[in-house]
């Protein structure tokens, strides 16, 4: 467990379980037809969000994309507001305008997640630039997939963060697929982390299913960022269990993926953390208590979302422009 306390590991474990349970329930509700908006599930990748966010404070900024339930929950976004948003209710974090791909929790540094691939990477550079100009000590983390590293957004952003030594952390969740396309069908080499060296910034390629490694690597990156030593690129290697979007397992993309999934399932980050907690002295009762707590939390969020009001037709026309408090 290295230098990670059992309390910290327990917190990260509970964070991962919350993401897993919430998403398993969302998958059921999509299958049942109760949820209609596209939901991109994070199941299997939880250690990346939970380990990274454990290294952050509430004020630090976190950016995500289409697959961001995990980032939002790990950073402390309200489960009620997320569930209501996915149900399209006015009590949702975006008042039912966004759905699963548009999560928002400014009170914990989430200024909006959006599904345009790589789009929030430059935005994260912007919050990092704001922090540098204001000297507010915050760091900005961008989570994105391996597909996003093929966009110009990514390369331009890493360069800008590097040249101005911005307090930015780029976390590439390499799950080896962009939608249905395998990594080596899209790039010549499996070498995403080398982008760091090319720009003269710190880089690390780690096991993204190891929550302790994620926490420790993120902590080192946060320390560098706060010390003014510039950005870090972390390549977290992982695997998404479900398909690109929705609850299915994407078996339609071929047998290769099916074999891969059976290799990756035994590397489940949650089972791994449970084993570490047990080795450190936890018993089954404690693990069960986490599950029971999270199950109840998720069930209550779903119940509240179900009974919350939907928008009315007249709401279509509001909020095209923001109305700021008078200046």
């Amino acid at each position, binding site marked *: 467990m290295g230098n990670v306390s059992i309390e910290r590991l327990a917190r990260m474990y509970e964070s991962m379980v919350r993401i897993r349970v919430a998403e398993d329930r969302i998958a059921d509700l999509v299958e049942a037809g109760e949820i209609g908006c596209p939901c991109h599930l994070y199941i299997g990748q939880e250690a990346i969000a939970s380990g990274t966010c454990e290294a952050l404070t509430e004020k630090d900024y976190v950016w995500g994309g289409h697959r961001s339930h995990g980032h939002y929950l790990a950073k402390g976004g309200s489960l009620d507001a997320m569930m209501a948003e996915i149900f399209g209710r006015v009590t949702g974090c975006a008042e039912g305008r*966004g759905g699963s791909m548009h999560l*928002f929790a400014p009170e914990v540094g989430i200024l909006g997640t959006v599904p345009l691939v790589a789009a929030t990477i430059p935005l994260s550079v*912007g919050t990092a630039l704001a922090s540098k100009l204001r000297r507010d000590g915050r760091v900005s983390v961008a989570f994105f997939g391996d597909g996003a590293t093929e966009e110009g*957004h990514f390369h331009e952003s890493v360069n*800008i963060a590097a040249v101005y030594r911005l307090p930015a952390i780029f976390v590439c969740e390499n799950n080896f697929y962009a939608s249905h396309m395998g990594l080596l069908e899209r790039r010549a080499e499996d070498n995403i982390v080398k982008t760091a060296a090319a720009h003269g910034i710190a880089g690390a390629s780690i096991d993204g299913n190891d929550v302790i490694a994620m926490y420790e690597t993120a902590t080192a990156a946060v320390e560098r960022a706060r010390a003014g030593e510039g950005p870090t690129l972390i390549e977290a290697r992982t695997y998404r269990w479900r398909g690109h979007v929705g609850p299915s397992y994407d078996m339609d993309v071929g047998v290769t993926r099916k074999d891969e999934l059976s290799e990756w399932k035994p590397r489940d980050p949650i089972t791994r953390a449970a084993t570490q907690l047990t080795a450190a002295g936890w018993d089954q009762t404690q693990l069960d208590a986490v599950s029971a707590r999270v199950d109840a939390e998720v069930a209550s969020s779903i119940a509240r979302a179900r009974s919350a009001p939907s928008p009315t037709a007249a709401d279509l026309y509001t909020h095209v422009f923001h109305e700021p408090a008078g200046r």
Partner: protein
Amino acid sequence: MRTLTYAEALREAHAQLLSTDPTVFVFGQGLWSPWYVGSSMKDLDKEFGRDRIIDSPVSENATTGACVGAALAGMHPIVVHPRMDFMLLAVDPIVNQAANWSYMFGGKIGAPVVIRAIINRGGEQAAQHSQAVHAMFAHVPGMKVVMPATAYDAKGLLISAVYDGNPVMYIDDRWLYSEESHVPEEMYKVPIGVAAVRRPGDDVTVVASSWMTAQSMKAAEVLAAQGISCEVVDLRSIKPWDREQVFASVRKTGRLIVADSGWRTCGFSAEVAAEVAGEAFQHLRAPIARVALPDTPAPMSKILEREYYAGAERVVRAAEMLVRATAPSA
């Protein structure tokens, strides 16, 4: 009364914003070089430091995106694109991100970013150093687009844009940089979405913005000598645009020319023409005329350029045609 050139007014607006508000900063290519931005940013880096006047890497997309992100974090960034053509590499952060942000998140947050796009054309610069693509951005919900024609508006609209609370594309035209007008020394705002009647008249309304306002004023002089009285309405903002002022003028003159510095097809002139046809049809005494760039890319050769940018002459011809078409029979 003190007068300044358009470029000096732009510089003064930036300087006053920077000196009164620590959340304002400017990011873009060429900010330390008069070669890119004329004298509109002259020595601002020396006065306010290169931390706040940041001459950027050649990355339109990420610099614009970074300004959107900084705006969401409470800053008031101005991102500068010394040529509007190059800004097209940054369409994602402008259209997908900044413009949608308020709506996507239920109005709980805005992206108060100013995207300053400079139209820089003529001088045989050809197709990729010439374009005026304001209509594309006016099309997008959540965007505001302003196009000042005078030094007074260049200053006041920039200040309004910075404090609007929404993404505003601020478009200035290098051809206007030496135009002079009265500019107060204090900070002031020109409201976004309010047109100005630059010249009252009775026979024909000419609705214009930016460079075409200046061209329409020239045309109005020529037409006055022929006994045709033009009312020149300078829109100042093309999104939102001042429908009421345009309708009021058309009610008076009964004839409309829409003069725009962009292309004809799906251009901004089509928007104004369609709205007037829909909302003020009963006041029209003649068909609506549009003066716009021909539907061709910008050419290089001087001969072709002269044909391409014949703004004032086309306004004169259009006005003569409209008045002839509706002249009372002898």
